[in-house]
Each structure stands twice: as structure tokens, then as C-alpha cells.
């Protein structure tokens, strides 16, 4: 039996779609179900839904053997897990954005973000000293209301930025979702995981053609 941590929200549909395409029989109402843990005994699989940011945590501690997590989460959390395959779903990117035609405060430029680790290592890498302010959502608000000069956030279509009158200044890194595996499960359940990995890899390769 393999336990898989699935991310709620944006990535979920595509992740479930990919598993179905790979031939796994998932219950049709997986995400609407009120149950937190759903077993699919025919497939020897067990799913649970988690906040996307927490998926890697569940997998690191081994309560889930596998998980589907965005690269943004992996970069931010730096969990000790195997990042086995790029599922090539939910493409987006992390970007620096702000109000148009603005320069940053020279003394202590402020950057608001949900990704404090990614943001600080990005600016450190560029040799820029910034102050990071951690927010948990509605990051676009920060420059509009004067909390920060810049934000670091995930961008998929760019619509949210535009609607709030913000522009992108730099792209940090491209993001897709990854299949991650707990190191102990990777060894102890190698056969089952190997099978799942190759089925998913085949499906992804077919999609790419």
C-alpha cells in the first residue's frame, strides 16, 4: 500500500488527471469528498489532501510515501525528499513584481513574499541586500498599500498582477509540479514505487509527443 499526499487547489485537478491518464482508478469525487483520507484498495493506494506548502513536510516525515508538490514548495522548504520526476503539470514561474516605473528604496528595500527563503537567496545571489516580509496570501496588496517595494510571487498567466496594476521586473525560476518520494519508502517499497514512477513517466512522455 502506498500513501500519496496530494496538493489541494490549483494543482489538484491536473495531478489527479495525470494519475487517471496513467491508468489509475481514482474515485470521481476525490477532491469534493469530505473525507481527508481516501483509500483505493483495488490500486493499493491511499490518498490524502494537504495544503500544497505542506506536502513535502508529510513526505519528509514519512507519513506519506509519495507526494505531488510544486517546485516552488521544494525550493522554499528544502525538505529531505527525492525529487524523482517532473510531472510537467501546472507550469508557472516565480517572479519579482512591483508597481510600474518604481525604483526600490536604497537603504532597505522591502520585499513581501510567501517564499522568504527563495526570495532571500535570490537577492543574496544578486548581491542585493533586501528586507524580506513574509505574507501568507494576497501578496499583490503589499506594494499597492505601501508595505513593500517589490513582491516575489508565483505567476501563471499574469492576470492577477495586471488586474492589480503591477508589472513583472524579473523572472526567478520556472515551476512545474514534481513527484517526490520519502527516502525510506524509496528503499523499502522500491518495487511499488518503481512501477508507479515508470507508469507516470510513460504517460508524461506520451503527452509530450
Amino acid at each position: 500500500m502506498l500513501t500519496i499526499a496530494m496538493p489541494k487547489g490549483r494543482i489538484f485537478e491536473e495531478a489527479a488527471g495525470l494519475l487517471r491518464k496513467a491508468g489509475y482508478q481514482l474515485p470521481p469525487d476525490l477532491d469534493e469528498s469530505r473525507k481527508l483520507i481516501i483509500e483505493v484498495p483495488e490500486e493499493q493506494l491511499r490518498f490524502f489532501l494537504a495544503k500544497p506548502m505542506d506536502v513535502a513536510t508529510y513526505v519528509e516525515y514519512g507519513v506519506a510515501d509519495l507526494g505531488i508538490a510544486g517546485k516552488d514548495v521544494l525550493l522554499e522548504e528544502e525538505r529531505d525528499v527525492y525529487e524523482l520526476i517532473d510531472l510537467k503539470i501546472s507550469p508557472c514561474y516565480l517572479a519579482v513584481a512591483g508597481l510600474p516605473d518604481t525604483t526600490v528604496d536604497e537603504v532597505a528595500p522591502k520585499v513581501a513574499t510567501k517564499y522568504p527563503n527563495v526570495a532571500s537567496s535570490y537577492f543574496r545571489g544578486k548581491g542585493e541586500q533586501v528586507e524580506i516580509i513574509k505574507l501568507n496570501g494576497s501578496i499583490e496588496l503589499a506594494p499597492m498599500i505601501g508595505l513593500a517595494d517589490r513582491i516575489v510571487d508565483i505567476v501563471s498567466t499574469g492576470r492577477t498582477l495586471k488586474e492589480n496594476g503591477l508589472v513583472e521586473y524579473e523572472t526567478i525560476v520556472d515551476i512545474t509540479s514534481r513527484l517526490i518520494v520519502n527516502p525510506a519508502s524509496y528503499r523499502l517499497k522500491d518495487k511499488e514505487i518503481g512501477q508507479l514512477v515508470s507508469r507516470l513517466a510513460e504517460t508524461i512522455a506520451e503527452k509530450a509527443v
Partner: protein
Amino acid sequence: MSKLLMFEKPVGMRDTLPHIYETKRKLKEAAAAEMRSWGYRFIETPALEYYETVGAASAILDRQLFKLLDQQGNTLVLRPDMTTPIARVAASKLLKERVPLRLAYSASVYRAQQREGGRAAEFEQIGVEMIGDQTVSADAELIALLVSVLKKTGMERFRLSLGHIRFTDELFRQILGTEERAQYLRRFLYEKNYVGYREHVKGLALSSIDQQRLLRFLDLSGELNCLEGAADLIEGGAGSEAIAELRSLYERLQEYGVAEYIQFDLPLVSHMSYYTGLVFEVYVDGAGTPAGNGGRYDHLLEKFGRPASATGFGLRVDVLLSALEQLEEEEKVHCILFSNERRIEAIQEARKRREAGEAVLLQDVAGLEDVDRFTETCKSVSFFVGKAASGREF
């Protein structure tokens, strides 16, 4: 003064309550007895070491070290592992005998945790080091002992993943040319980021054959036959030697009867630079993190001025404990309740029983608020209370 933190402990520090203590003690004793029966001798080293020597030579990341200053202003560390202190002792005192040393340890080590409390910052390790023997037989003995220890400590399902750093190094050197580029690629393996590895390889200016070699390398895990695939990837030299070494190791492990627990995992990179040959990690069913690891580290002793080959493993007692399904029952003991009049009788009775090897608890009735609550915690009770002449037993 700020308010005293009554129940708080520093991040990652844990208490061990009696029944867990007993389980842990039995587990450690079983492991230690096995190590002793293979001729390993236990040693102890201090909890504090100099940062410049042990701290810097250790395989543990700098940010994980607990550092403090002594009265002279030297930086000290709480030992983050036992291998480095043992290497220090071996180099300075023990290796003069010029025979292979078989040493064992059971001690707490300290690694600062930056994140949440789910990881221990102080934990006990039990392990062995074999110093001064470069043969495959030494590595084989170590792994056979490891399997034997795991069985003795009650582990039922476990796996050992084996890799060989010289193979990885040689393959990368042959294909990539420079150590710098090899280092860059090795980091992806160390971080278990196979997606990043593949992307990086695809972006390198290499012939498609060489790219394929690097990509196929990732798949070299599983049973013995993956060594054949490995041999195909490498052209002679140190890499082929490494494969030959793994083969002869496997043969010896079959002779020891422990080959069924082995799986190969050639992309395994446990550390960026510490190991020099065989590396392995131990996984037990029921624990999400490695229960132990080890390998050959032929350059560590050099740092203490006496080059010698060495190989060893360390097991994490806390992880083994978490994999055990059953904790020890709290052991109840016989209790003697006495009142002042018959104190002498009670003491004599207790002595008699203790000399016979029984655990006996002696309790003055005047010290109890609730006699019934107390007797519930006893295995059995004898009363030496009041003026009667003999102890009643219940």
C-alpha cells in the same frame, strides 16, 4: 529577570521517561553485546571538542554544530558525531600498535535543528569503526555485523542501500573532465534532486552518448544485475575497480548470509566529500528517516596527522526505537510497606529479598497520602505495619 520557562526545552531536546528508558536500554544492550561478541571494544570520548579540530573535520554541516566558548576564548563544539572524535583518539593514541583497530561507541551526539521540533537535536548513536584495514573483508565484516545488530535489536524488515563514491567520481571525471563540473553535478545527487540532475545533464555540451551515460547512471539501483549496467558505463580505471570491489563485497555478504538485505544504489551520495569508497544507508520499516549510515572514509585520519584507512557505521537509537512496535511495559516491583514499630523487620526483609536478586521497594506508611493508590503501582505488597509479628503478603 525574564519569566522562567517552566516546561520548555530547547528545540530538539527530549526527555526519556522510565518505560521508554527501559526499552532503549534493552535495545542498546542487545546492540552492544553483539558488537562485543565480534571483538569490538567500546570507548568514550568527551562531549566537548575543539571546533578547529573535531568540528572542522566532521562530516556534519557547520550550521548544525552547537558552538560555545571556553574560559580561554577557544571555540568548542558539542560533538556532532562519534566518528571524528574516535579518529582523533585513534590517530593520537591507539594506532601506534599498527594492527587494525575495532572500536565501538554508544553515546549522545548533538546537531542543532533550525526548523520544527520533529527532529531530535540530541540523540544517541551506537556504532563501530574499523581503522587500519583497507580490505573488502573489512567492509564486508562491517555490513554483516550491522545486519546482525539490527536483528538483535528486534528489527524485522530493513534494507541497506550500497553505493560507491569512487565509481561516481570516476564516471563524472571521465565525462565532465573537471572536478568543478563533477562537484556541481554531484550536488544534485546529494540533494536527491533527480529532476534537476537530468535537466542539468541535458543542458551540458556533451555528445549524446555521454549524456546517455550520465542519465542511465540514475537508474543504477536495485539488485546485483545493476552492477553489470554500471560496468558498461565506465571505461576502465578506478570506476571499474569500484565495481569489482562491490562485486566481491556482495560475494562475501552472500557468504555471511546477509545478501538478502542488500540493495545497490549507485547514485547514493550521502555526503559531498567525506566518504572515499563504499557508502551505505540503513532503512528500517516503520521509520521515515535513515536509521543509520556509514562507509569508508580513508582521508579523515590524515587530518589528525596519521593517514590510515577506516570504515564504520553509526545507528540512530531514536530511529530504531521509533520503528519498534512494542515498548517495554513499565516494570512493577515488590513493595514492603512498614510502620515505625516494625522498621527493623522490614529492612531485614528487604535485604533478604534483594540479596536473592529481587527488586524491592521499601516505603514508610507515614509517607503515603493514599495507601491504595500506592499499592496499585506495586507488583505485590508485604505489610510490616502495626504490632503483629509477621509480614502479611498480598
